[in-house]
């Protein structure tokens, strides 16, 4: 038994040490069956991926097509410069909604982005122990909270005491944006290599100097992109605004006291009505909103490219 195992091992050894046939050159074109099978499988996999990509792009293309083909009719100069008339009437536009969206998304961005970036800096640079863990946990939970809840929360906490208006809508949107900003900024800050922080500290930089002079500039482009995603999310938000901004038929420039409109609220109301002019304007509004959302990432890239050059 033992003998045979021994002999077998010896034989195995000799074959590996001195191969009977020395390695010979084979032309590169000469492919064996195994390689051919591998190549085929690789091909197949590529087709599968291609089909998957096509399938996932299909709804997007369909949406684009539907929105543009329905919305282009009512879209134009008048659409961008006139407020919404009663749903029955032709003409007019979404100026009240555009102004409201710009106002509320703008204020929400000013509220949420600095706060979110600061929170992310805290989590990445200082966050140890239970407090950071709690913040991270609630950020995760907030990402998944349905927007109606956020709207109800702002309604109960603020709107009932004050009134519907721009600021209320902005607060609601800011709450929606905050977890996205925190999460995306956190990931970007984590991507800054540790040796950059060490280099900065080695030059006698204090922690806040390292953060403001090395970490944030390095993570900057990523943070801007992440924040743009949050802005896009806020621009498309409806449920929160129903309970905080309410909607308005006039252009509102007041920050509080008067109910405010938004593109999404107008789309929602226009689409509910049985009147074609209102519906057509809703399609045009959807097209406008989609255009804004599509343009944001390009804006982000443009901003960051100009900053880094």
């Amino acid at each position: 038994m033992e003998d045979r195992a021994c002999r077998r091992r010896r034989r195995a050894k000799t074959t590996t040490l001195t191969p009977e046939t020395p390695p010979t050159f084979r032309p590169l074109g000469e492919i064996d069956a195994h390689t051919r099978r591998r190549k085929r499988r690789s091909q197949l996999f590529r087709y599968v991926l291609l089909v998957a990509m096509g399938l996932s792009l299909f709804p997007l293309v369909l949406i684009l097509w539907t929105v543009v083909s329905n919305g282009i009719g009512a879209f134009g100069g008048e659409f961008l410069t006139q407020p919404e008339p009663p749903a029955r009437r032709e003409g007019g536009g979404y100026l009240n909604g555009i102004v409201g969206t710009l106002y509320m998304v703008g204020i929400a961005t000013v509220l949420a982005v600095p706060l979110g970036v600061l929170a992310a800096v805290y989590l990445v640079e200082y966050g140890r122990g239970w407090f950071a863990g709690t913040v991270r946990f609630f950020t995760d939970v907030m990402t998944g909270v349905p927007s109606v809840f956020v709207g109800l929360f702002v309604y109960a906490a603020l709107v009932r005491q004050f009134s519907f208006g721009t600021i209320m809508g902005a607060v609601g949107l800011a709450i929606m944006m905050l977890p996205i900003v925190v999460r995306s900024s956190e990931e970007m800050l984590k991507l800054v290599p540790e040796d950059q922080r060490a280099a900065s500290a080695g030059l006698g930089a204090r922690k806040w100097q390292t953060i403001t002079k090395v970490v944030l500039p390095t993570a900057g482009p990523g943070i801007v992109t992440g924040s743009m995603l949050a802005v896009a999310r806020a621009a498309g938000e409806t449920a929160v605004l129903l309970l905080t901004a309410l909607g308005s038929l006039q252009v509102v420039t007041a920050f509080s006291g008067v109910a405010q409109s938004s593109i999404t609220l107008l789309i929602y109301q226009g689409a509910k009505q049985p009147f074609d002019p209102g519906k057509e304007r809703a399609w045009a509004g959807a097209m406008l909103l989609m255009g804004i959302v599509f343009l944001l990432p390009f804006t982000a890239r443009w901003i960051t490219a100009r900053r880094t050059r």
Partner: protein
Amino acid sequence: MVDNTQAQAAPTAAPAQTGQTNTAPEFTPRHTTVPREVGEAVFDVETVSVAYGGAPALKEVSMRIPKGEITALIGPSGCGKSTMLRCLNRMNDLIDGASVSGRITYHGEDIYAEDVDPAEVRRRIGMVFQKPNPFAMSIYDNVAFGPKLHGMKSNLDDRVEKALRGAALWDEVKDKLNDQGHALSGGQQQRLCIARAIALEPDVILMDEPASALDPISTLAIEDLMRKLRGQYSIVIVTHNMQQAARISDRTAFFTVDMEQGVRVGELVEYDLTETVFTNASDQRTESYITGRFG
């Protein structure tokens, strides 16, 4: 291959003298051979031990690091060379769970004293890391980073040029100071990091395997640079390259890993003039390591 001229040419600061005249009487190094008398010390390390999260990494190291010379730290991986180096400019403070005990003085001042600001220590004591780590900014901004940080904003251009010249990089980059630091070759990046460190005019430069990621020619360029900086700066260098230690250093400290009750701890075995360590080591372990026979 081994070029010892530099080490031999090094002025022996003082005649061999074992009496510890300059230090407190209770300073009795336990795990070191007493180094030959160091003239003026830039660092005085007294029974320094380091632990990471309670696990000891370095045990009771004592050594006097001379001013204006090049001191090499050698030894097998994990013996605590980087740990020792990071103690000297308080970089260990940035590592969670790292604890340093013992005493380290820099020109006679305890750098771990209550009222000492670690950032100020790191400003005076430059550090170059194993992997070149320029900031994601222009070459100019990399070098100007330290001076700007500390409000040294007058003659910034001159300062940057002087540092780049000091790091033997000026001629290669003078026409592209606005290019990204990352666009340089590895060896150039490392010299950029040296320029960045010397722009702050430290009197000590700590280098952790500064040439380990570089080709032989860049390595020689860095070594030449170190020879040039010697005298003006005190340099402490960690290296795995024995020839490099022999070529450039005046003194060599050999560390090793010791098993103590089943725990691996780094310790300083021998610290002496490089020439002595390489030709006439007093500890068997040093000799085995240097000649390539490991215990």
